[in-house]
């Protein structure tokens, strides 16, 4: 069947889009690689009770009820691994399912953690906060018994309190940014955010968890797994203040510097991108959520990381926009749409402030030594990345990849892409550009796909050549 719109991603943004467009009468396909609805924010285990503790669970429950009531054609455990445009829209290749065709495409694929390398980050027990959170929310497992939480961004707080609730000890929360800077722009912060922050702070205080700002984990040590980390105070440039390093024992550490949007599908279609204030590659969209490619829309973290509330607002807006584009009536009156636009503008302002406060510390490369791996899959140390620029003459990130294989392994640049691109720019004495990041974000095969899936069984159009015996 040919859908009016295919929505990829069933997190806050995709769910809201699908429900809104369906309410307006669109035939909607909703696809998500995860086994359950909810995306990163409302990730939950197999039992319903594992989700009730989540923030705004009632919002999720209502959206899910709406979805089940609607005609939306939702497929779980359906990873979209290839997209191509066809004369009448788009064709999506989906693992385990026949291809999906739709006139319009909404990209709501969210984001994943942004990692920065540091000595010892390849030890078992060093994970990203998102991974720790996914383990907690998805399986109720804490990554360690004594965990250091570090990096930058408001996300560190729910990770720390989540670990505490699961019975882990948190040996400290080290935020590289300076959250006091929020105070300089009080108008930009909604009251709800302040209350949320206060709740987290109270929980940390109750468990006597040290919370330090302007600090970072700059090295991890251990034999077969991490057993301690070095924490240092950062100066204005993000370099470690001498004499400030100290060691903290732990059996796990989560480190992450914000999120990076997941852009394989829109990049494969040629959608334009730009460099957001937090240094992330994000989709270029207009006020209606249209990307630079006709028929392709985007909502949520892919248009700029801003959290679940913003993702919900954008999802509703884009749902209304695709409904209108599909010749249906808007499910919302003009006045409501106008209010949503205002709301989104203020949520974006807050996101911008958040990025300024929690930007990755510029001096992070000074934490590395020559042997620190920049790319863990292909085991490429800093020295080889530097040699690619200074000795072999590379001027851009793509060439560095060709010369030293960063981003060519298992993660295909998802983990090391930002760091390599940033290092290349810095070694070349220039600022990071969107083109540097595109070099590591373009993956025509959006998700690793098994040979058996590629080979068959025959799809509805009978296109496949291989039939397993």
């Amino acid at each position, binding site marked *: 069947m040919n859908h009016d719109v295919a929505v990829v991603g069933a997190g806050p943004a995709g769910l809201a889009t699908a429900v809104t467009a369906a309410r307006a009468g669109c035939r909607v396909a909703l696809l998500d690689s995860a086994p359950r609805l909810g995306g990163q924010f409302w990730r939950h285990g197999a039992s319903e009770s594992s989700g009730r503790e989540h923030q705004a669970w009632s919002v999720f429950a209502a959206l899910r009820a709406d979805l089940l009531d609607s005609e939306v054609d939702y497929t779980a455990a359906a990873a979209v691994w290839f997209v191509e445009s066809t004369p009448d829209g788009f064709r999506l290749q989906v693992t385990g399912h026949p291809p999906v065709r739709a006139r319009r495409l909404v990209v709501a694929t969210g984001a994943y953690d942004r990692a920065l390398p540091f000595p010892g980050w390849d030890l078992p027990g060093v994970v990203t906060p998102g991974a720790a959170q996914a383990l907690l929310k998805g399986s109720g497992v804490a990554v360690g018994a004594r965990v250091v939480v570090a990096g930058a961004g408001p996300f560190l707080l729910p990770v720390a309190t989540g670990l505490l609730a699961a019975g882990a000890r948190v040996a400290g929360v080290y935020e590289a940014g300076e959250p006091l800077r929020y105070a300089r722009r009080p108008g930009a912060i909604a009251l709800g955010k302040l209350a949320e922050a206060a709740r987290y702070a109270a929980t940390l205080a109750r468990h006597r968890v040290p919370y330090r700002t302007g600090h970072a984990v700059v090295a991890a040590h251990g034999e077969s797994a991490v057993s301690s980390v070095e924490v240092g105070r950062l100066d204005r440039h993000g370099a470690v203040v001498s004499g400030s390093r100290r060691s903290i024992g732990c059996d796990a550490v989560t480190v992450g510097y914000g999120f990076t949007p997941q852009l394989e599908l829109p990049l494969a279609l040629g959608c334009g991108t730009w460099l957001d204030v937090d240094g992330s590659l994000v989709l270029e969209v207009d006020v209606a959520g249209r990307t630079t490619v006709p028929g392709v829309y985007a909502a949520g973290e892919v248009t700029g990381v801003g959290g679940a509330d913003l993702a919900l607002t954008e999802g509703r807006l884009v749902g209304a926009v695709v409904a209108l584009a599909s010749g249906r009536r808007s499910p919302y009156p003009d006045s409501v749409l106008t209010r949503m636009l205002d709301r989104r503008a203020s949520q974006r302002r807050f996101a911008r402030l958040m990025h300024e406060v929690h930007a990755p510390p510029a001096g992070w490369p000074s934490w590395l030594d020559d042997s620190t791996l920049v790319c863990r899959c292909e085991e490429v140390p800093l020295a080889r990345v530097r040699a690619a620029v200074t*000795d072999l003459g590379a001027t851009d990130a793509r060439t560095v990849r060709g010369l030293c294989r960063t981003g060519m392994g*298992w993660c295909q640049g998802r983990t090391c892409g930002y760091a390599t691109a940033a290092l290349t720019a810095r070694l070349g004495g220039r600022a990071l550009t969107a083109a540097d990041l595109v070099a590591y974000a373009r993956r025509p*095969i959006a998700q690793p796909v098994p040979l*058996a899936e590629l*080979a068959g069984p025959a799809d509805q159009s009978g296109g496949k050549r291989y039939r397993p015996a």
Partner: protein
Amino acid sequence: MKLRRSLPRPARYSGFGLLRHALGGAPWPPVWRRHDLRDRYDVVVIGGGVHGLATAYYLAANHGVNNVAVLERGYLGGGASGRNTAIIRSNYLTPEGVAFYHRSVRLYESLAADLNFNVMFSQRGHLTLAHTDSALRTMRWRAEVNKLQGVDSSLVGRSEIGSLVPHLDVSDRPRFPILGGLWHPPGGIVRHDAVVWGYARGADAAGVHLHQDTEVVGIDVTGGRVQGVRTNRGRIAAPAVVACTAGWASTVCDLAGVALPITTFPLQAAVTEPVRPFLDTVVVSGTRHVYVSQTDRGELVFGAAVDPFPSYSSRGSLEFTEGVAAHVLELMPALAPVRILRQWAGLCDMTPDFSPVMGPTPVEGFYVDVGWGTYGFKAGPVAGETMASLVATGKTPDLIAPFDLARFTDGRLVGERGAAAVGH
């Protein structure tokens, strides 16, 4: 042929040097240097792939001609030399082809030592499968031609194939069962970047200027003689210009007014996630349009024939990946759960007879080393050696005389299709 040893050598890599640098932190010298563009060189080589770099290297190393520039519009090795699947072999079909590629395999065998740079040449053996009687007939013919030229190559049956590559389905079950194969022990794979850098480093040390980000936009010809080239960085005078531009051969030779019987096609390849080493040969199936090898990191590398239509696009396509997956699984059903991570494409300059075009052109002083199609990486060393000899001495070496441009007008084709269509 013997290398002259008097030229300046690059800084030697040795165990002692490694220790000195590791312990003392002494910086390694840059692998190659940047230079200002001279306004005149004795030889200008267009194209910084394996062919251009090898030609420049042997001009300096074997003939003492080192006022040479290699002009590369992107970065060294950024063309097909950085995208190929690096299969090296010499079991071709024609006596001319076999002799030529045999010399290249020989050069590869000593290349790491000659360049003092580990090129990771792994002679793991090359197995071509036959699924039809006619394929078997061609292989028998190839094996005979190969043996006459002193190349180790023989026909093997199903059971031998089963023990060479235990994961192959040698039963009668597949739609096209395996009937036999051509087994070529000296064949294998090499690390393509290392070959490129090794030649670049050697050429640089010998005084050759390597200019990256330098695109040739015009070739000056007066009175039927080449005068030099025009680049985005200025004009260069040169009495000899060599085009080593593979996929872009037609457009570059156009600048000199030389027409080539070449059509450019994309060729794709794909790579899987790393898996435990299990495959220590290169396996090719012409009938199934696929070949497979495993890298030292464990990834499986897949390739096929060129795309079905000419183009200068280097985008991967779904048709390719699906086809390759289906064909690989018919050969090795156990690979079903292995996941593809990445695919890519490069350009191939295909000739009508699947042999290269090497030698002088109607424009005096303008030489071509093109038409490398899907099989030119293995020829890098021998092409460099022979082209250098031609440019330096003005005499065409016997090894490449059959591959001249005039053969297309004289009707002397060197048909290698039967040995080069899929198995690059």
